């Protein structure tokens, strides 16, 4: 790589940007973390819900490093991939660092060729070299670099190996010399297209190829850059060709095959795999096995429960809520506020029973934050381990019955942490129909961690059979409503297709970085909604509406569900946050005001409620106001219906704990 003069570095100018581009699961985030250290800002890409990370790199002369969503190849296949295309087209970074998977050389090089055609300075790192070597592959980065005409460096980012050569590769990033020769009709179409394409840092040849391949993002971008007459000509040129995208792809693949042969020191030698690879392959097979996959899943769930349920919801919440907030902070603040603000209305607003501090903040910080924190850490580790796609395969049959495929399991698992956040992640699902079905199931039948802790505690104090009844009813509702909804919502089920990355040990620093980014989201997006919810309760209380509403709902709670009248206030709070209700019911149970049947009935009903005001806002944002309203109208009465029927059934069979 010494053949590139370092003095001409494209990233020398202040404020220059380097984009990290590559397939999912190739270690882009680990590179990002290594290049930028702790300081990163998360933001939604304009006009989308896709997050991108940016940070200044002290290792690269304070260049701004942008971490783009994973893309396998162009054209983009999802909203995430589209953002990567837009970053390259609209923001044209000074340099691209492609992070490639060394063991999947052809897939990596296909993207390299596409990126090279854009004409931006670039460098490539063949990452996860350890995994390639463990499979008996060995690469010649220098020869590949010569063929491509830009620097190539091998690395193992998780262990920090090869970082120096990656840094110098980025400094020496340059425009590729490789040019794929396309068949005559494509080349002459490109020659015709070129004069019509806009001037700029992106190569006209690259833009022309994107146009001929029918790349939607490139089309949208170009239609803003050229006038309508030119656009018509562009369309005519493309229209005259027969399946140009296929022709372009075959020519590229031929070039990729040649490049791969250059790069592989021993071409296609049967892999002399290490024992660690064999073990991972064995574990991978077990994890998706219809029978043996279940004990492994149970183990994962048990770990999740120990970490989030016991450590997070138990120990940490105990320390924060009862200890720090309950005994130290809140008494002090209450004393200060009542001293400084003598008017009861205003001091109540802050520290009253529905005070913004004593209820809203205490709740969000002392109760939810530890649960959400531990859950995000656990989920980040599951993500990086490669287990989640295998879970999608394992559960595919179950979700097939609900008109979905196994990929629906990811938002569902996330829903066990926070339904509001899970609703947001339904966008990973490919079709509108799937997003709608999963959103409904999340809102109806997935208990979130805030509530799960309380529920488990209440049921455990009765009996195993109480917990089983609760679990069975919730699962049956999930299944019945999911099945029915999949028949009613028009559209076709999409078959499952998912990449299973190798099972790996998660890198803790990477998990931490992701967790911090998600916590930032929680504080910015979710916390204000809790404050707003508390304010709503405060206003209802001050207007004397709360007691009226409680009295109005008493017949339903008492007559239909067979609960004591005091439970009505808990249920009303449950309309805003179902875990408020769970906490209230827990209080009643511990004072001996609820029989075992009443506990099971009330807890089951509350579990089926919509999780919280925040999640309703999120459903409205993601699925539209009409959908949100429809779900409210369906879910609350339906939950009450199920609760009442359950009570009658339990009385009938004479169950009593």
């Amino acid at each position, binding site marked *: 790589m010494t053949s590139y003069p370092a003095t001409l570095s494209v990233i020398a100018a202040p404020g220059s940007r380097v984009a990290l581009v590559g397939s999912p699961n190739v270690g882009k985030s680990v590179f990002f973390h290594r290049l930028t250290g702790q300081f990163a800002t998360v933001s939604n890409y304009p006009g989308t819900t896709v997050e991108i990370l940016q940070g200044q790199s002290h290792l690269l002369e304070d260049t701004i490093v942008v971490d783009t969503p994973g893309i396998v190849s162009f054209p983009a296949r999802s909203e995430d991939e589209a953002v990567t295309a837009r970053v390259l087209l609209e923001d044209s970074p000074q340099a691209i660092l492609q992070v490639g998977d060394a063991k999947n*050389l052809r*897939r990596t090089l296909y993207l390299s060729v596409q990126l090279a055609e854009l004409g931006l300075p670039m460098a490539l790192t063949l990452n996860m070299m350890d995994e*390639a070597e463990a499979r008996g*592959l060995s690469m010649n980065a220098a020869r590949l670099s010569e063929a491509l005409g830009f620097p190539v460096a091998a690395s193992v980012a998780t262990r920090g190996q090869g970082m120096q050569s990656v840094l110098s590769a980025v400094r020496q990033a340059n425009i590729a010399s490789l040019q794929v020769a396309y068949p005559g009709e494509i080349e002459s179409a490109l020659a015709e297209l070129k004069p019509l394409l806009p001037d700029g840092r992106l190569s006209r040849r690259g833009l022309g190829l994107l146009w001929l391949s029918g790349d939607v993002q490139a089309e949208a971008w170009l239609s803003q850059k050229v006038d309508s007459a030119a656009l018509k000509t562009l369309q005519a040129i493309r229209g005259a060709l027969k399946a140009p995208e296929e022709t372009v792809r075959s020519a590229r693949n031929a070039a990729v095959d040649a490049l791969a042969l250059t790069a592989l020191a021993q071409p296609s030698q049967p892999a002399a795999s290490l024992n660690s690879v064999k073990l991972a392959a064995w574990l991978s097979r077990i994890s998706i096995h219809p029978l043996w996959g279940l004990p492994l899943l149970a183990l994962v769930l048990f770990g999740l429960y120990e970490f989030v349920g016991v450590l997070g919801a138990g120990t940490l919440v105990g320390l924060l809520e009862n200890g720090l907030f309950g005994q130290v902070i809140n008494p002090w603040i209450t004393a200060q506020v009542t001293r400084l603000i003598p008017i009861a209305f205003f001091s109540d607003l802050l520290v009253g029973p529905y005070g913004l501090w004593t209820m809203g903040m205490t709740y969000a910080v002392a109760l939810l934050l530890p649960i959400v924190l531990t859950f995000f850490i656990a989920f980040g580790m599951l993500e990086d381990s490669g287990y989640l796609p295998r879970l999608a395969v394992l559960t*595919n049959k179950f979700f097939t019955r609900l008109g979905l495929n196994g990929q629906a399991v990811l938002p569902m698992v996330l829903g066990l942490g926070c339904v509001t956040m899970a609703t947001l992640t339904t966008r990973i699902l490919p079709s509108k129909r799937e997003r709608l079905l999963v959103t409904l199931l999340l809102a109806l039948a997935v208990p979130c961690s805030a509530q799960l802790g309380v529920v488990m505690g209440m049921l455990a104090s009765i009996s195993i059979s109480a917990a089983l009844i609760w679990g069975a009813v919730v699962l049956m509702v999930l299944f019945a409503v999911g099945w029915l909804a999949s028949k009613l919502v028009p559209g076709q089920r999409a078959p499952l*297709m998912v990449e299973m990355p190798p099972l790996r040990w998660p890198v803790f620093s990477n998990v931490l970085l992701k967790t911090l980014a998600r916590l930032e989201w929680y504080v910015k997006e979710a916390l204000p909604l809790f404050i707003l919810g508390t304010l709503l309760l405060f206003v209802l209380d001050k207007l004397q509406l709360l007691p009226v509403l409680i009295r109005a709902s008493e017949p339903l709670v008492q007559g239909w569900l067979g609960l004591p009248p005091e439970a009505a206030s808990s249920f009303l709070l449950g309309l805003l946050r179902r875990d408020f209700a769970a906490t209230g019911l827990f209080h009643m149970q511990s004072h001996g005001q609820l029989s075992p049947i009443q506990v099971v009935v009330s807890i089951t009903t509350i579990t089926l409620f919509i999780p919280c005001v925040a999640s309703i806002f999120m459903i409205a944002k993601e699925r539209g106001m009409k959908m949100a309203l429809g779900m409210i109208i369906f879910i609350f009465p339906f939950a009450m219906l199920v609760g009442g029927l359950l009570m009658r059934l339990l009385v009938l069979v004479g169950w009593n704990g």
Partner: protein
Amino acid sequence: MNLPGLNKRYSVSKTPDRLSEVPAGTSVIVTGLDELSPALRQSLLAYGILPGRPVRVIARSPVLVLEVEHTELALEIEIARAVKVASQ
């Protein structure tokens, strides 16, 4: 002996020409793709399931698991039915 059942048995044991028929542990060469939804077709191509490329079937249940280069892909049989293959 021109029983339909026998013919059927014969056609199962012949060399598979669809990815969905390839037994576990066998490598084949992709020869083409049938009509598929644009999204699925795009995904298959992006992962390197292209004419001329070798793929190996690792497992057939609960879904088909393939090795393409060194990537494992899980896909439902229904998708694999649209992938034409020839023995190596």
